[in-house]
């Protein structure tokens, strides 16, 4: 039953959905840039910094937009009023795990990368920490692919 409600989307939800999708794709693009730049840096400081700053300046605002618009959509679709006899659908659970759990991982990647960039600037290495940022970015890319599949296919 919840899946049936989810499939019917009134027009007043369209703007929230657009913002949610913009946030998700901007975050996805920033993660792709970050992982690719660090993976292909071969020690080049410019690419290592690009990998970090694309996460900080593009990915973080995208993630905030994704989460805020997702919460708005959740409330517009009245999921918080779902009767107790109904469980929330699996796809919604996957979305929350990826948005919130992934958000924490994202912040960890930013913290590690921030220390890495600081050490890089002071000539104390830092490439290893940025590689950890890259690994987290790759994990998040996979998680986002799973979330897109779950949100669209709505498996239960």
């Amino acid at each position, binding site marked *: 039953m919840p899946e049936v409600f989810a499939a019917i989307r009134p*027009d007043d939800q369209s703007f929230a959905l*657009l913002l949610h*999708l913009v946030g998700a794709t901007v975050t996805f*693009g920033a993660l*792709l*840039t970050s992982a690719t730049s660090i993976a292909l840096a071969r020690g*080049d400081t410019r*690419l290592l910094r*690009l990998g970090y700053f694309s996460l900080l300046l593009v990915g973080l605002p995208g993630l905030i937009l994704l989460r805020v618009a997702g919460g708005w959509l959740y409330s517009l679709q009245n999921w918080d009023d779902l009767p107790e006899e109904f469980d929330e659908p699996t796809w919604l659970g996957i979305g929350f795990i990826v948005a919130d759990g992934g958000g924490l991982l994202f912040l960890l990647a930013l913290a590690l990368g921030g220390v890495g960039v600081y050490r890089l600037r002071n000539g104390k290495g830092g490439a290893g920490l940025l590689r950890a940022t890259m690994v987290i970015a790759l994990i998040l890319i996979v998680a986002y692919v799973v979330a897109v599949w779950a949100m669209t296919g709505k498996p239960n």
Partner: protein
Amino acid sequence: MSFEDWIFALHLLTAATLVGSLVMSWIVIVSLRSADTPDATLNLNRVGIVGTAAIVVGLFGVIAFGIWLAILRDAFQLWDGWVIAAMVLWALATVALFRSFAEYAKPVAKARELVASGQTAPNSELTALNRTSTGLLLRALASTAVVLIVVDMIWKPGA
């Protein structure tokens, strides 16, 4: 999940790949504007190549799965106004993107030429090519078309 659900999921996954890789290409384009040496240009090009490949996968995947979905689903047809609008915008985005790829290939060729002749210092001609306004406009046009496709897909005007 039904077969149709899988096609829908793949349609949206390739759409996410397209928009995500466009975001990636914009990050590279903005970074290129401050690249004035052959090394910096070629290093950024390595990242740009991945973005370009993802854009091409997204472009062709989204149209293939989209048409497949329009054939499978009874709720809409290929000749519906909003579907035709999306296909026209897709064609516009594709042409603009491929022309912009050609524009951004010029600084890469110039950087390779400079490296081959042993010049690694900042070069004004290379900087100008990296800041191509034609490439920037074409990429902006393509991005606008893609955003309009997303808006069209969400609101489905006339459906």
